[in-house]
């Protein structure tokens, strides 16, 4: 039966900013046992801007959970349900089949219709019509990948998301620091700020619309927030000393941050409406890199109060901090998993800095990355992957690893050194 549901993905990306070199995903450590799936090329109008089936297949492959079969091996190329002959897909060993069409809806508008089938049960699993436009077709293809991923794995996909990161390039005697935003797969990169002085510590608001970051453009550190669509920005704090490590509360009404205005770095909570500040930590040590638990009740942060940097947690109402990491001499820059049960950290041991994940309850720590100077871990909003910064040759590059450490990929770019990736929440 042709039961087509409609979803309204009204998303008008009005980037007012310049494009720049794209990041390209390269899978560096594969995953055995990935589910074979076929994404058949969608029939099109001939002038649509994106190859939707290719985007979906690349998304599914990049999750490490699926192995899309090559188009060359396909015996037929169905685009509507009536054309599907299940036995030939069974012969290919394919478990699931995705087919579809892209139709013109007049002007810049298009309609993507797609279906997914369980090949062994000869059963339709999904059928959607997705209205889209020239400029949003790629992002809507990511939304389709999200639907497919969720149907097959039971957890939401994280393809219709973005990453923010900082690049640093030499231009003659000067440095050029850029704050950039791209789709999760490195496509569609946009520079939202360029400066001759360092930019650092980008942090997404929960709604994926704002970035907070640190800029040294005034020859000192200040914290700004900026709307990534309109580029409208606002200086939030600029006290004497350190103004650093901003982190949005889950509700988006407050920022946890680090200030050294009282003599040494301490964690504060800054309320956006009114600009009030509440000091959370009180120790002569370096207290920095706060991050909110998903329920908004706890801050995890880095402190060297015990002699070397370790992760501690404290109530957002203040009070006594408790040490969380005990394994290894150096643990810093924590990020909470979306379920609040794990922390990704920079883990230093024998002169190597790698990304590790801590199970908060058991205290068990798993090292996931294999670099020497890895840093800045950030969970995907579905918890499936962690993006981080690593070194390739002399340049900084981004990499991602599945939360179980079995699947790894790298993002390559021609655009200088890349670092400090942060994964957005779902873009609404």
């Amino acid at each position, binding site marked *: 039966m042709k039961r087509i549901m409609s979803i309204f993905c009204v998303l008008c990306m009005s980037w007012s*900013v*310049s494009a720049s070199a794209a990041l390209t995903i390269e899978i560096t450590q594969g995953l055995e046992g990935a589910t074979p799936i076929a994404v058949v090329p969608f029939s099109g109008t001939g002038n649509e801007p994106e190859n939707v089936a290719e985007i979906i297949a690349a998304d599914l492959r990049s999750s490490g959970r699926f192995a899309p079969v090559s188009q060359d091996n396909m015996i037929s190329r169905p685009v509507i349900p009536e054309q599907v002959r299940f036995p030939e897909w069974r012969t290919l060993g394919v478990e699931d089949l995705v087919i579809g069409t892209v139709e013109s809806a007049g002007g810049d508008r298009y309609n993507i219709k797609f279906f997914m089938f369980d090949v062994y049960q000869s059963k339709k699993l999904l059928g959607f019509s997705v209205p889209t436009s020239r400029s949003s077709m790629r992002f809507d293809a990511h939304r389709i990948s999200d639907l497919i991923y969720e149907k097959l794995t039971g957890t939401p996909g994280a393809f219709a998301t973005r990453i923010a990161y900082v690049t640093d390039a030499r231009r003659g005697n000067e440095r050029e620091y850029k704050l950039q935003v791209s789709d999760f797969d490195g496509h569609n990169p946009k520079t939202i700020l360029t400066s001759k002085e360092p930019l650092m510590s980008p942090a997404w608001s929960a709604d994926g619309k704002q970035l907070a970051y640190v800029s040294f453009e005034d020859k000192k550190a200040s914290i700004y927030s900026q709307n990534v669509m309109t*580029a409208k920005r606002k200086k939030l704090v600029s006290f004497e000393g350190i103004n650093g*490590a901003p982190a949005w509360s889950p509700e988006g009404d407050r920022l946890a941050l*680090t200030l050294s205005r009282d003599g040494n770095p301490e964690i504060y909570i800054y309320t956006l409406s009114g600009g009030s500040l509440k000091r959370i930590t009180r120790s002569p040590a370096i207290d920095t890199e706060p991050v909110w638990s998903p329920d908004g009740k706890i801050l995890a942060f880095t402190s*060297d109060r015990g002699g070397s940097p370790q992760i501690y947690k404290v109530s957002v109402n203040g009070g006594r901090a408790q040490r969380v990491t005990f394994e290894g001499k150096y643990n810093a820059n924590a990020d909470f998993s979306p379920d609040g049960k794990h922390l990704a950290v920079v883990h230093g041991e024998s002169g190597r800095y790698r990304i590790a994940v801590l199970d908060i309850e058991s205290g068990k720590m798993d090292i996931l990355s294999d670099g020497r*100077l890895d840093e800045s871990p950030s969970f995907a909003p579905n918890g499936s992957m962690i993006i981080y910064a690593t070194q390739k040759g*002399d340049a900084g590059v981004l990499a991602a690893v599945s939360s179980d450490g079995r699947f790894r990929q790298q993002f390559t770019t021609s655009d200088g050194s890349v670092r400090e990736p942060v994964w957005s929440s779902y873009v609404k």
Partner: protein
Amino acid sequence: MKRLISIIYLALITLVVNGCSSSGPTRNDAADVIDKGDAASSVAKPYDSSAIQPLSDPAATSLDSGKIIYFDFDSYNVDEAGRELIAAHANYLTTNPAARIRLEGHGDERGSREYNIGLGERRGQAVKRILELLNASPEQISIVSFGEEKPVDYGHNQDAWRQNRRVEIVYVDG
């Protein structure tokens, strides 16, 4: 003469620094909230950071030792060469009360970036304490930590890291 003064200074510093753990400045500035409005048109342009130029530069005139103090790994201890250099700048600051400096603290690239901002500030504070013990006025000295964000050597090895763990003394228009 200069040498004798240096020796006296060094003795004094060693004595006082070791027993001192002052937590630095406690001056609070009011929050500086500026709504840039439609900054969209200007954000894509690089910021002009050339406004700040060194004024009187004692390192170029009266000192051979320069303006950079180096530190060991994970350390804020100023060594003898560093103390000698700081003493010369303290001398200049006390005889030129209008002079202003910015201490720019830096670290090497290892470990997390914001934690390294904290380390860079500690190095700046160590230098500031010595300057103040030598009678430079706290009002003459500001500290900015750049952490690992502005390396002088972009290599990823011990030599590069040694060059990057530093405090730079920058004379500014007060």
